[in-house]
């Protein structure tokens, strides 16, 4: 995940905040996990304010994605392997 534009993804929220991402994940995705900032996923270390939530929904992975000039996005990335890996690892 070198660049948001290079990934197949759906933007669920844009120009948002880490708090709004957290609230959205908690209210929309029962299968969610708390990870530490810096957690590596899709070859990228996640940026955020703890507690940092990510989720899986079917074969999709939902993560916050922050860029200094564009703010924070909440994105849905179709990736069955990563979804299965997260279900198995249950990161905390």
């Amino acid at each position, binding site marked *: 995940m070198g660049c948001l534009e290079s990934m197949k993804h759906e933007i669920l929220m844009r120009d948002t905040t*880490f708090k709004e991402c957290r609230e959205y994940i908690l209210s929309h995705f029962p299968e969610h996990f708390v990870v530490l900032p810096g957690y590596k996923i899709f070859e990228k270390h996640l*940026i955020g304010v703890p507690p940092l939530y990510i989720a899986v929904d079917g074969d999709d992975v939902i993560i916050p994605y922050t860029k200094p000039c564009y703010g924070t996005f909440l994105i849905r990335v179709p990736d069955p392997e990563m979804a299965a890996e997260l279900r198995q690892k249950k990161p905390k």
Partner: protein
Amino acid sequence: MPDTKTGPRDALLLLGCPQVPIQTSMALYLASKLRKQGITTVITGNRAARTNIEVADPDRHYIGEVIDIDRCIAQLAEKKRDFHYCFSFIHNDAGLSYAATVKAISPAAQILIIFGEHYQEVASSVDFPAEIIAVNAVHNPMPLKAKIDEVFPWVVSNL
């Protein structure tokens, strides 16, 4: 890597989006002050922020190493590198997210330099231990310079 870094002191200057004009001048000013104290500085930011810094100091009188922000976060997260201090330049939620990330993955003493027109709102969102310098400064760097001058001796003596 130990919980507290030892050896010669160094500082990470974590830049946000350069859309607020004073960021570049204040980062250079702070780098100069740190250098005079014998503290090595490393500046990180996205390409635009880094380019502003490097163009403003072409002969590198004030700046030292300048690295990409994603690479910097990776090095910190993977415990390949650390710093005594992290000065985070913050004017929006994204900047705060980066600072919180460094706080979570590094034992560096955190100093948050919060500025811009929404400085109060951003400062009120900080919910992790850090020294906070928050000033209403967008185009004129002098209010922030004055605040940094005021707290700098305490920061380098006590953190």
